[in-house]
């Protein structure tokens, strides 16, 4: 994949976070599109989305030029990884494929140090951002209409995706906060996530 | 000593299955294959055949039952016709992909609509690309022989593929013909007991048919493709042994009749080959230089043998008994493969196809004479006017 394409991988849990994970990827791509970028956002089809709690991936890609890879359906080298449920760090090598200098965003009420102890390859990171998205807007929005390629009728960023996206802006310069605000439904949660995020530079 | 009997194709197939010592049979009735199961059921009831006889609740169940039984190490037989064949379609790919060598006897039948029960190759031909071995019998004797040959080839560990052993519904399945029943010792010499490399066995548990990832799918497709590349050598061995043990003179893939000095030929498979032979005999007496090439295996398709056999003619007429609506040749399935087989030859014969014997219609001598006229005209013109003739329905006689 052309090196100019920025790859963002979201790790979420099957069914209970299926929509939230997808909203993070879609929100990011939609906001980047407002900034004139070429974007893609899609689910990993090989993961098992219809089993409760199974680890699964959603992807976003942002580029200044047209993205030629549409059907290479894995992000091999993510520079930003978002973990929508913190316990995933014990179950999966979430930084797989990341090159040195990446950013990790985690939805947790714990401190960055508490998460980093479960990341054996943390030297790849230049920063970690923690945000208590559940504390800001409660449980994930569980909605199945967007699964398996259906049309999502609930709207983007009504739940936990909003504060996570807000936190993302604190650790990266992928998109601007106002462009995220233009695409997510729960703007208050977006701003709260942005304010309350804890950033630790490494 | 071998004994001569007069049997229908269904009854001949049942006799072959009995002598192959089939262990699990699964039935569901549909014309015209039903008599196979009637015969086998009698044999089991009378204690002549020691086999489990299971009644499926449909063709999908039939194939699922024999898949399980074959995977557990039993030699199995099932069968069907027409819409029964297509109802079980889902099961064909996993059986071939799982490399479980079940045998299915198909007495072919036209597909609906509406409820035509006459012979047509379309039912089985629609299933030809799933990885099964496939071929047609011309008469009850071949129905008997093909059963044994297909068990031997399909169960060979270099192949391990299921087999569609086909015969024309009614024409072969119902009209009795002479069948030489061999001695059991001959069959035992030809056909070793069935073994599977990894059978279902509680002492050595294995998983059959697990979920796989997309990146494993290509490998499994490749395995099946390789099995079809390896099968021809095994077929040649099996036919050589068959000819030696049973005193026959089969060719493995294509058989020729009166082709030595022929300028034109019919390319044909199944029951109507017999009528075509008589037509050729009469045409020869009038000085028409015509012969025929009969196909014995549709899968694996004998590309090389077809090319070699047909390259010596000026014109070839493919007799189609199946449909491929909207296909490149606008007719049946065989001309596609015949033309593809000939493509790399420096000198190719002119080819066309004849839709004949569809829906169970007869193909009488006069239709073969009509086809021969078209082939003569092609040679005279130096070209084929079209790729398909619907025999009996063309505006230009």
């Amino acid at each position, binding site marked *: 994949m052309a090196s100019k394409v920025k790859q963002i991988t979201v790790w979420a849990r099957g069914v209970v976070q299926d929509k939230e994970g997808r909203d993070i990827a879609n929100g990011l791509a939609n906001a980047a599109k407002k900034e004139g970028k070429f974007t893609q956002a899609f689910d990993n089809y090989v993961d098992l989305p219809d089993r409760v709690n199974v680890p699964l991936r959603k992807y976003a890609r942002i580029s200044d030029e047209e993205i030629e890879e549409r059907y290479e359906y894995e992000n091999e080298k993510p520079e930003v990884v978002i973990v929508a449920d913190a316990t995933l760090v014990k179950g999966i090598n979430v930084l797989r494929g990341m090159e040195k200098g990446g950013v990790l965003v985690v939805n947790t009420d714990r401190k960055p140090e508490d998460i980093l102890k*479960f990341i054996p390859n943390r030297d790849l990171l230049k920063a970690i951002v923690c945000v208590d998205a559940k504390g800001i807007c409660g449980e994930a929005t569980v909605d199945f209409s967007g699964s398996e390629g259906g049309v999502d009728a609930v709207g983007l960023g009504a739940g936990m995706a909003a504060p996570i996206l807000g936190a993302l802006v604190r650790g990266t310069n992928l998109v601007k906060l106002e462009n995220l605000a233009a695409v997510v439904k729960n703007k208050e949660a977006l701003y709260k996530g942005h304010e309350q995020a804890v950033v630790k530079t490494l | 000593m071998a004994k001569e009997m007069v049997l229908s194709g269904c009854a001949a197939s049942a006799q072959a299955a009995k002598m192959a010592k089939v262990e699990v049979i699964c039935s569901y009735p549909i014309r015209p294959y039903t008599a196979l199961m009637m015969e086998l059921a009698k044999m089991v009831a009378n204690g002549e055949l020691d086999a489990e006889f299971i009644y499926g609740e449909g063709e999908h169940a039939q194939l699922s039952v024999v898949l399980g039984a074959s995977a557990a190490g039993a030699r199995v037989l099932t069968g069907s016709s027409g819409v029964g064949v297509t109802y079980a379609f889902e099961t064909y790919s996993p059986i071939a992909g*799982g490399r479980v060598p079940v045998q299915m006897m198909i007495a072919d039948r036209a597909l609906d609509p509406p409820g035509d029960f006459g012979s047509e190759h379309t039912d089985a031909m629609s299933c030809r690309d799933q990885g099964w071995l496939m071929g047609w019998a011309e008469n009850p004797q071949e129905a008997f022989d093909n059963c044994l040959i297909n068990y031997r080839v399909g169960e060979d560990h270099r192949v391990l593929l299921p087999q569609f052993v086909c015969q024309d519904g009614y024409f072969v399945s119902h009209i009795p013909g002479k069948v030489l029943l061999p001695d059991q010792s001959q069959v035992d010499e030809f056909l070793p007991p069935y073994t599977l490399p990894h059978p279902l066995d509680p002492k050595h548990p294995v998983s059959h048919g697990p979920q796989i990832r997309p990146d494993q799918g290509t490998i499994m497709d490749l395995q099946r493709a390789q099995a079809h590349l390896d099968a021809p050598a095994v077929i040649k061995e099996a036919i050589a042994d068959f000819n030696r043990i049973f005193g026959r003179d089969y060719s493995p893939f294509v058989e020729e009749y009166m082709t030595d000095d022929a300028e034109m030929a019919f390319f044909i498979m199944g029951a109507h080959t017999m009528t075509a032979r008589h037509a050729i005999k009469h045409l020869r007496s009038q000085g028409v230089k015509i012969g025929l090439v009969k196909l014995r295996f549709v899968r694996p398709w004998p590309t090389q043998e077809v090319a070699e056999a047909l390259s010596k003619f000026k014109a070839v007429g493919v007799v189609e008994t199946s449909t491929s609506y909207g296909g490149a040749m606008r007719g049946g399935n065989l001309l596609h493969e015949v033309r593809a087989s000939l493509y790399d030859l420096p000198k190719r014969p002119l080819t066309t196809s004849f839709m004949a014997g569809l829906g169970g219609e007869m193909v009488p001598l006069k239709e073969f004479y009509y086809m021969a006229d078209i082939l003569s005209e092609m040679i005279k013109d130096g070209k084929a006017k079209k790729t398909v003739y619907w025999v009996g329905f063309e505006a230009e006689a």
Partner: protein
Amino acid sequence: MFIIPKEKEVPLGCITPAPVTEQTMMITGNWREYRPVIDQEKCNLCMNCIVYCPDACWQLNEAEDEVVWNAKYCKGCLICVNECTTEALSKAYELDFEDGVVRLEKPF
């Protein structure tokens, strides 16, 4: 002839040795957010956890006379906590434990 790279090999017909004690091709411990924790003092060995666990993640250690939990495969469904007759089992957040790390390279 075809060349199949070592990492892509699939056994003939995808017929694989069946799992006898555990299915290493489908490790499910990373589905878990909360784990069951046992208080052996309260446990009366009713074995409800063993019976109800959908993934056989509770087993009886006959030598020690106690039930043992399998962290590698427990999905954290907490059915065992619900079915425990003596309140010996309770739910605890996974990040509070150093152990129970599975950390697979790919989810499936």
